[in-house]
């Protein structure tokens, strides 16, 4: 199948949507489909050969912050040309309600269109004000995909239509094999955390309080923290004698992230809520890390009710300390959990997820006809 993917945000800027599209494109090509991606991109960035640049995105105030978006007739005519020359069997736009390339693609194209909604946004009056322009473009979408239940709810509220729920995938082979960071996990054992430090729902506070107990009991135990946020703020919450055993990596590269997962004996996901799927959890599972996670519905489901990772009472540091301590003392249990996690994550592997996406394509592609440009 010839698939045209439309990315609304600048390709080289790190972001969930961009990563999703890159992984999906590569997974689709791995399944033998032909893929072309159009995306805003800066002039001087090298792009993978399956990506076509739609020119630079323009910074403009949007939704309370400044976003870089591609809009206007020049962008529209570039998308139009790409659609025309691509002769796609299906056009797959991402985040089509954002005022950028995806919306333009819906506008200029005719034919089988699939759209994926990534973020959940409350119904706004802006949607009302420009409803006609948006609605006529979005009415052309034949099949909707939502990456989370929340995104799906947004879609149902906005358009009244329903969507197939296909969660984000994880590229397992990217995490499967990586060498631990030098000196890790170390003889005294190591706990790990990955996520924004200053976002309360990620639950770093719960972990730090559990570490007070665990670190005092185990003189060699260290805690590895990766993710953006104020390191001093976080360190202040740790009592002085333990501070030197809390190591902050800050924001890490894709490669170092994989290495970080391999650097710890127990990976902790102490989130207190709001996580619809937990891509971090899936990455940790793909890395084969033994996991201790909050007993949230989403996590319990991903961890197969506790068989692919220990669950603890959400928000309870002493229960986390107990669960993590038990795992640190039991190498056999850790090996079992690691194997179970590697096995359980297979269903979230991108090639598998991409197959579900292809099913949606097949459902909207009629026996004949390609994507063309609107008259």
């Amino acid at each position, binding site marked *: 199948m010839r698939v045209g993917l439309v990315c609304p945000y600048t390709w080289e800027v790190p972001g969930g949507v961009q990563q999703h599209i890159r992984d999906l494109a590569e997974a689709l090509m791995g399944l033998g489909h032909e893929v072309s991606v159009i995306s805003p991109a800066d002039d001087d960035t090298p792009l993978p050969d399956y990506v076509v640049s739609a020119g630079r995105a323009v910074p403009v105030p949007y939704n309370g912050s400044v976003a870089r978006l591609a809009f206007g*007739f020049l962008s529209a005519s570039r998308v139009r040309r790409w659609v025309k020359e691509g002769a796609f069997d299906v056009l797959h736009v991402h985040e089509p309600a954002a*005022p950028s390339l995806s919306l333009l693609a819906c506008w*200029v194209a005719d034919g089988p269109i699939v759209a994926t909604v990534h973020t959940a946004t409350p119904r706004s009056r802006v949607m009302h*004000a*420009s409803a*006609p*322009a948006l609605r006529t473009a979005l009415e052309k979408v034949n099949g909707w995909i939502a990456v989370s239940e929340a995104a799906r709810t947004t879609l149902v509220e906005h358009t009244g239509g329903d969507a197939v729920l296909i969660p984000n995938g994880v590229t397992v082979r990217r995490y499967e094999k990586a060498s631990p960071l030098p000196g890790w996990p170390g003889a005294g054992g190591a706990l790990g955390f990955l996520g924004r430090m200053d976002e309360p729902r990620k639950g770093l506070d719960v972990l730090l309080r559990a570490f007070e107990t665990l670190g005092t009991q185990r003189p060699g135990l260290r805690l590895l923290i990766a993710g953006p946020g104020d390191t001093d703020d976080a360190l202040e919450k740790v009592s002085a004698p333990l501070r030197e055993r809390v190591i902050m990596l800050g924001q890490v590269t894709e490669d170092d992230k994989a290495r970080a997962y391999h650097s710890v004996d127990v990976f902790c996901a102490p989130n207190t809520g709001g996580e619809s799927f937990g891509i971090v959890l899936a990455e940790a599972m793909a890395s084969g890390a033994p996991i201790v996670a909050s007993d949230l519905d989403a996590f319990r489901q991903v961890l197969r009710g506790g068989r692919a990772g220990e669950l603890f009472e959400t928000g309870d540091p002493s229960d986390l300390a107990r669960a993590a301590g038990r795992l640190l003392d039991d190498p056999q249990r850790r090996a079992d959990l690691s194997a179970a996690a590697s096995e359980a994550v297979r269903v979230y592997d991108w090639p598998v997820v991409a197959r579900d996406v292809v099913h949606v394509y097949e459902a909207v592609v009629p026996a004949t006809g390609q994507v063309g440009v609107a008259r």
Partner: protein
Amino acid sequence: MLIDVILIIALAVLVGVYVSWRAGRLDRLHARVDTARAALDAALLRRSSVALELAACGVLDPATSLLLAGAAHDARAAGEPTELAESDLTRSLRAVVGQPDASSHHAGPHGPHGAHDHGPHGLG
């Protein structure tokens, strides 16, 4: 003694006159600030109305329309410190107008639905 009293009264009168003169001046300045602010509000409202109308009239592509409508809405919903709302609206308008070919292509590449169908119901 009497001189003292007269002096004090004279001083009090002088101070009184001075204070009431300052107060009157302050009041006039206040009125001028209010008028200026009302004029600014009216200008912002007018600009946002035009932006909304432009967004709804259907000659622009939907992404630009959506951006304009959003900017206009934010400008109207903005509370007291309107400078931010003004400069945001300005930035949005400039980004839209500054797009290459925006002026020469308004009859250009649009789909069959793009140019029609939007009535004035997007306003307000």
